[in-house]
């Protein structure tokens, strides 16, 4: 009798222990907001130099923060006697110590010193959408910029720091500038190695060759995409394209010179911007926040989660963190795989 009871109890224990289930694992990634830098205005863009973040803070102008100490170093809401108008892009040229911003009126730059934006140098007009600045030696930089006015299109120019009689040393635009007028607005730019890619709105994505920095871009090919190509990013082996409400594409470099292979993903999302580091792609989705993808195989991006961190314009990788430019400010995110 005792044996039977023991056996029954043993059987029950075995059934109970081994009868329990284990939940499925969706293998998604997670994010943790480690810090939010309040910028008052919408954080629209950020450029990071070391631990210093140059933040395009919309109607709060340009803000410069130390990311480690989380302290605001400087803030600029005007240039000369005029107010900055909704600063949307920012770049810092460390070689020449120049800060570039783009607001609703134009692109402008000035030396990053105590007189920053007292008398900035303007570039372009009020329809600019994006710019990239390249420099190899001190005293010279090259700027490529695009315009949503199809009549202006894709423009570039060289600036040298020169002595001008009776004026002194200033940044002077050289005569070797150029322009390509496409049949559609141009929205975004990316440079890597010998290539510049341009997001051409309804026309898709253009790829140009630039053998030497400062050369005029040589057209290679254009590939059409669904929706409107809003932004581009050249990665190691291809081009990521943000196509607004048509999602995103990865286009291998080979496609621009041979058989076209388009790899579409996030096709039910509104993708405004893509940032990539190693095997992670961070997609900015506007009101939906961000979406992360595993791009170990970029031809088959694997969805790893949508994260509603607030209305997100762009993201930038900084060290092992992700900086999200949102309407709530600049959010420092840790990605946990």
């Amino acid at each position: 009798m005792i044996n039977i009871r023991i056996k029954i109890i043993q059987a029950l224990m075995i059934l109970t222990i081994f009868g329990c289930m284990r939940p499925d694992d969706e293998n998604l990634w997670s994010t943790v907001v480690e810090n939010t830098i309040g910028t008052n205005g919408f954080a629209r863009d950020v450029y990071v130099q070391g631990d210093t973040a140059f933040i395009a803070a919309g109607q709060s102008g340009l803000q410069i923060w130390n990311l480690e100490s989380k302290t605001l170093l400087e803030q600029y809401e005007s240039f000369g006697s005029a107010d900055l108008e909704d600063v949307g892009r920012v770049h810092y040229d460390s070689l020449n110590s120049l800060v570039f911003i783009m607001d609703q009126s134009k692109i402008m730059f000035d030396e990053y010193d105590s007189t920053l934006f007292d008398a900035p140098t303007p570039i372009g007009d009020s329809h600019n959408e994006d710019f990239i600045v390249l420099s190899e030696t001190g005293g010279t930089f090259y700027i490529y910029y695009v315009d949503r006015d199809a009549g202006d299109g894709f423009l570039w120019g060289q600036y040298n720091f020169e002595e001008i009689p009776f004026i002194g040393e200033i940044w002077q635009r050289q005569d070797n500038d150029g322009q390509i007028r496409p049949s559609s607005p141009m929205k975004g730019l990316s440079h890597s190695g010998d290539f510049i890619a341009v997001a051409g709105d309804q026309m898709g994505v253009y790829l140009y060759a630039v053998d030497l920095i400062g050369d005029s871009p040589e057209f290679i090919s254009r590939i059409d995409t669904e929706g409107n190509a809003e932004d581009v990013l050249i990665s190691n082996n291809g081009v990521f394209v943000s196509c607004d409400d048509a999602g995103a594409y990865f286009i291998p470099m080979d496609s621009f010179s041979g058989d076209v292979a388009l790899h579409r993903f996030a096709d039910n999302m509104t993708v405004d911007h893509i940032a990539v580091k190693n095997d992670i792609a961070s997609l900015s989705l506007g009101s939906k926040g961000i979406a992360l993808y595993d791009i170990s195989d970029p031809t088959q991006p694997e969805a790893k989660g949508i994260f509603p961190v607030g209305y997100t314009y762009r993201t930038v990788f900084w060290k092992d963190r992700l900086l999200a430019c949102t309407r709530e400010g600049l959010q420092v995110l840790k990605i946990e795989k």
Partner: protein
Amino acid sequence: MSLLLGGTPIEFGVSLTGGYDNNAMRFSIDEINEAAQDIEMMGGAKTFDSFITKWGISALKEMIIGQKKVIKLKGFLASSDYINTPEKKYWSGGTDLTYKWGPYRNIKYSLRHLDRFYLRHYVNRDITVSDLASCVFTDRSHALTITQRLSKVSWLNLGAGYLQRYYSRPFTEFDLDIVYLKAKINYKLKNIGSVAVQINQGVANNISYSSQIRPSSFDRSYDTMELFFPLKINKNLPIISEIGVSLRAEFREYDAEDPSDPLHSGRSHVDSKYDMWVKKKLTDEISLTMSSRFRTRVTESEYEWVDDLKSFKQFQFWFNIEWDMIYDKY
């Protein structure tokens, strides 16, 4: 005193059931209207209703271990197929191990499994904003029940259970561990049948909930109480062998109080199931049962759209034939 493994025969049962469900995916009226515009909500189904076939087998072995002392081991397996809802095909099974030391005196361990039960298609908000995926869950339940005679006409069941309701990818955010207590008082009605009152009280813990930033990160934990009133008449009936009615009502209240989660915050519902059945024993071995269920879930929330979204009505009808057999190798 010995365990008479071979002392009793094994009893087998085979059953075949045909049925009809007028709302197989439990759509609310609003969702039915919405599905008319967006057919993908229905997965592979073309209709809201479905015919159902179900077969089942069961086996019972009793082992006599002494005077009035018996160990019972029962197992069953069933497979269901919703013919007009292609995703809804599942099997269920279970086993009961009972130690009985007298009439209405026993202790029973029950293990139940419901495998990949399809609910409907939902948007997988973790990785998309509009793509639908089938929502499927699996139940595994352990329960221990003690039965004690109270009088010549009444007896009491007291039990506790642990139910794991785990969803398949990509809806693991719904995973629940449910712990419940159960009490049931049964009365024999002389020359009529029996009646019972049962109350279940449980707590569901949404184990996959975390404060992570995800569109699906909502706390779906809830408290639940269920009342069950069955009335069975099986004495002095003409033509039929048994007739019964029952009411099962679940009162559920979600824990969530986050205003950013209007779907669950402050939500509660009453899920009522009205059952009726008629059974006819054709022979000692073969019986026919006709049954029906009317189910209604009434949701209450601060938001009218949530009330409309989560309330539904459902009607089911079943016809079952069962054949009991005995296998005795001696």
